[in-house]
């Protein structure tokens, strides 16, 4: 019987063919522990009675949620994680380099075919390079740190096929928001979203990351793209039969197939306060906005900043509106410095912060107050995520966000 991408990845790792519903114990290639969860994970690890980390070189510690620290106890998380790393010989530590999900592929850890777990739900991002990656709690992570393995249920796959050329004002963010709108926030629970078709073939890895990243907002366990030459170039490896073999078989079995014509897609926003409350931008156009946030592991990459800069070049943002730009990583920040993108954004009046989770994790980076409206390029618009529960969060693409910053009201790019 034919296999989906995710069945192949898991099958390769366990050494035999698997089918949806199988419960298998998989060896882990990478685990990522972020700064919020590190102290909790370390505590569980000690409680479990482990005396060593199964393979310190497979563990990556990333400090991003609390950077820069906004609360008195934040830096304790850095210190406890540092002490754990020193004790168990963990050397892969990124203390100020950017958002964990950006770094796990950008810094060369996760490669096609790998299995990764992270203590953050957006770990699904690494599906962009053809890896199985999903978020887990800190107790399970503690178990992996000790054993190097975890049980999983092989997920069914939903095939999301997108064909054709996207209109100029539609980005991969609009695509994934549209998919989530159609699937609903629980429509892919326990399943994998497998993205394919000519539209995604033509996308950059960065654009694919946006889609993998948000798969979890439909409840998915993974959001995966079969690795192609672009993927391998990004990962710094040659494209071989090994990667080619990870593509789905023609007779693979899917629980569901969604088909989209790219030409028919329009810019959309996720309206407050559910990620699946999707409306065309045109339907909410004119809504007054207090702040725009460009950043996060969803849309804080160079191409996102460039897209905004293209719109903002030579203009200034609307009076009394704030636009906060938080590049996803140090590498992105420096690239945007080098090509003039940050200068355009600074000239336009943006507040450019240091790379990190920023406003998306709701502990700083532009918190809002009652009745304020924010258009944000990140992944969640839950009640209270960016301040009080009376803050209204619209999720949008970098293009929509930049146009909105220019006019002060929600505007289609």
């Amino acid at each position, binding site marked *: 019987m034919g296999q989906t991408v995710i069945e192949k990845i898991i099958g390769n790792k366990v050494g035999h063919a698997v089918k949806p519903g199988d419960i298998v114990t998989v060896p882990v290639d990478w685990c990522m522990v972020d700064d919020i969860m590190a102290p909790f994970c370390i505590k569980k690890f000690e409680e479990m009675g482990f005396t060593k980390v199964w393979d310190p070189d497979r563990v990556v510690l990333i400090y991003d949620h609390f950077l820069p620290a906004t609360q008195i106890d934040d*830096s304790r998380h850095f210190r406890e994680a540092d002490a754990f790393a020193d004790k168990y010989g963990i050397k892969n530590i990124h203390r100020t380099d950017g958002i964990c999900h950006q770094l796990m592929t950008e810094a060369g850890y996760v490669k096609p075919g790998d299995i990764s777990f992270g203590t953050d739900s957006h770990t699904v991002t690494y599906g962009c390079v053809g890896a199985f990656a999903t978020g887990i709690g800190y107790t399970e992570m503690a178990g992996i740190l000790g054993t190097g393995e975890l049980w999983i249920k092989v997920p069914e796959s939903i095939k999301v096929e997108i064909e054709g050329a996207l209109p100029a004002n539609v980005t991969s963010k609009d695509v994934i928001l549209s998919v989530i709108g159609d699937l609903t926030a629980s429509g892919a629970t326990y399943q994998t979203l497998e993205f394919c078709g000519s539209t995604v073939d033509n996308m950059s890895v960065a654009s694919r990351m946006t889609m993998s990243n948000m798969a979890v907002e439909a409840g998915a366990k993974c959001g995966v793209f079969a690795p192609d030459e672009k993927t391998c170039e990004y990962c710094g490896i040659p494209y071989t039969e090994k990667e080619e073999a990870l593509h789905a078989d023609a007779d693979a079995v899917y629980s569901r197939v969604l088909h989209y014509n790219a030409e028919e897609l329009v810019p959309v926003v996720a309206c407050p306060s559910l990620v699946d409350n999707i409306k065309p931008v045109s339907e909410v156009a004119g809504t007054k906005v207090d702040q725009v946030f460009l950043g996060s592991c969803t849309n804080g990459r160079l191409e996102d900043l460039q897209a905004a800069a293209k719109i903002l070049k030579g203009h200034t943002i609307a009076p009394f509106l704030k636009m906060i730009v938080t590049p996803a990583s140090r590498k992105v920040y420096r690239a945007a410095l080098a090509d003039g993108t940050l200068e355009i954004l600074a000239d336009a009046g943006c507040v450019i912060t240091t790379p990190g989770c920023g406003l998306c994790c709701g502990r700083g*980076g532009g918190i809002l107050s009652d009745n304020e409206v924010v258009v944000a390029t990140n992944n969640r618009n839950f009640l209270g995520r960016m301040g009080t529960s009376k803050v209204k969060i619209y999720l949008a693409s970098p293009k929509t966000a930049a146009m909105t910053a220019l006019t002060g009201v929600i505007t289609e790019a």
Partner: protein
Amino acid sequence: MGMTMAEKIIACAAGVNATKAGDIETVTLDRLMSNDGTTHLTIDMYNKLKNPHIADIDKLVWIVDHNIPADSPKTAASQKKMRDFAKEHNITFYEGEGVCHQVMMEKHVRPGELIFGADSHTLAYGALGAFGTGVGCTDYLYAMVTGTSWLLVPETLRFNLHGQLPEGVYARDLILTIIGRIGANGANYKAMEFAGEGLHGLTMADRISICNLCVEAGAKTALMEVDDVAMTYLEEHGRTPKACFTSDEDAVFAAVYDIDLSEIKPIVAKPHFVDNVVPAEECLGTHIDEAFLGSCNNGRIEDLRVGAAVIKGKKVAPKVRFLVVPASRTVYKQAMKEGLLDIFMEAGAIVMNPNCSVCWGACQGVIGEGETLISTGTRNFKGRAGHKDSFVYLASAATVTASAIAGEITTADRV
């Protein structure tokens, strides 16, 4: 009888020919600066007035700089209150443009002006020969409503500067040395006036840094004579003086100090007081967790150049968080153009948006229990930068950057 600079500015603002230290004068303010630290409280009081009224909208400058970007619903709410009020009343308003005193220096302050700022470091404006002083929000509100206030004319401590600072020694070292000498209350209620040929060799950045920190000696204001350097700065920023005052030959000073700049050495102010100064050498080897290059005191382009020169080609120590925070958007953009931001980013520093940052102790880079920060900020009071049991050392941009590289306090010539 001759008058001091402070007396002349107050006399001018009071519309009288002469005044002297100890007199109380009613003055008309030239400018009223307020920031997000306290403006929401001023607005609350304003709204409770029977006949709320603003004497002269054009004199008000409101600046959101303390918590940018906002770090909690509470700060977001106070900023919103400020923003909405500014919008409604058409008040000159900046948000995210930089630290208030730097923005004021770049865009508003004129020699000879008398300026109230609802922030203690308003003394910075003395670098342009303006009388800036910090007030609480009640005084601020009174001035905002009436356009006037009363002032006790201060005595003046005169500092005659001679010679030149040695290489690797900065204005920060000079003012810390002075504060160490006269003590944290050595200038209480007084004006600190700087003059002498040594002043002419100091850049505007140096001057702002010196005046800014005078409040840490308790001074009411700090003043410097307006010379060519100040006039050039003013012209470059498209402004003209209100008046350029100098103290008369026969002015009466409470004390006169002669400072030989060539004798100044790199200085560190140890926890928990600004006057707890020692030569940097005495702190060598002190472990640090965080370093901060920024603030209204040392976040200007000159400071970033110093830091970048020290760190270029080197790396921040692995466990040190090195925050680099330009004082304003203008500084940020200039640093970007000169490639300084990339030097810092390449070295592993955390380059932030212009704002008060950890100098204000909230929002960015808050330090935890038992941690040590070395900072170019203004204060090292207990708990200022975070946990009550944490430690702040104050030093120059060079010393702070060198320490960030070493992971312990050191001087630039040692890294």
